[in-house]
């Protein structure tokens, strides 16, 4: 089933809405994410609130989308990933993602010397 041309606008609006949520949540700031992961430092719980809000609404939305009605509101088949079990690629890939993701906020040596990264 091909995505129709008419999906251009809804898809743009969805990306925009998603991005606006990200901006509002503060999670466009790498240091906010690091602050959540820094449980041994000055912990910033923001990310937990973001996830709580997102999953809280998402639970309702995806529950509605699980109805046996075969197609989405724009007539597309539901194409959700299959629940194929926890395997090694999933865990190894996620582990790499977790490590690499926080490196955006890694201090340069200069910052470390000047003590601005305490």
């Amino acid at each position, binding site marked *: 089933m091909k*995505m129709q041309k008419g999906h251009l606008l809804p898809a743009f609006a969805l990306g925009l809405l998603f991005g606006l949520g990200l901006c509002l949540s503060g999670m466009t700031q790498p240091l906010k994410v690091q602050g959540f992961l820094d449980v041994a430092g000055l912990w910033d719980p923001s990310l937990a609130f973001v996830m709580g809000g997102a999953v809280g609404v998402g639970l309702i939305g995806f529950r509605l989308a699980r109805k046996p009605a075969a197609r989405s509101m724009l007539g597309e088949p539901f194409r959700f*990933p299959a629940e194929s079990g926890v395997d090694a690629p999933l865990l190894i890939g*996620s582990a790499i993602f977790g490590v690499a993701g926080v490196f955006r906020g890694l201090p340069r040596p200069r910052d470390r010397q000047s003590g601005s990264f305490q």
Partner: protein
Amino acid sequence: MGDADRLAEFSPLSAISGGAVIGLAASLCALLLGRVAGVSGILAGLAPPRRGDLVWRLAFVAGLFAAPAAFALAHPLQQPEFRAGAATLILAGGLVGFGSRLGSGCTSGHGVCGLSRLSLRSAAATATFMATGLLTVFFIRHILR
């Protein structure tokens, strides 16, 4: 920006309402397009581009990229502060892409959509990248320093 400033910035209201908007976008993506709003997956589907599958992905990414400018019209948006050098950013960016593809998803796909779908795979993935991220930050901030 010091840690004290960052702590002062902590705003549970904007965090939870921003999260709710993200959850709404993910829900509408499922209800309207029948798709999971996983950003790494949407991007990955662009290479190689497939006929009939291209427009919605490009449009979604364009919307995502337009968001900071649109947001800044209504509300001051702090510039993201990248403290890493260019080489680190390029390497880390590559590994973020590699890891999220190998693991079939990132924070949006597994963390938001997967958990909302009560997927065991996504719960395992989210726990894993949170744990390795936590260990990495601990190592960088409290051991290396």
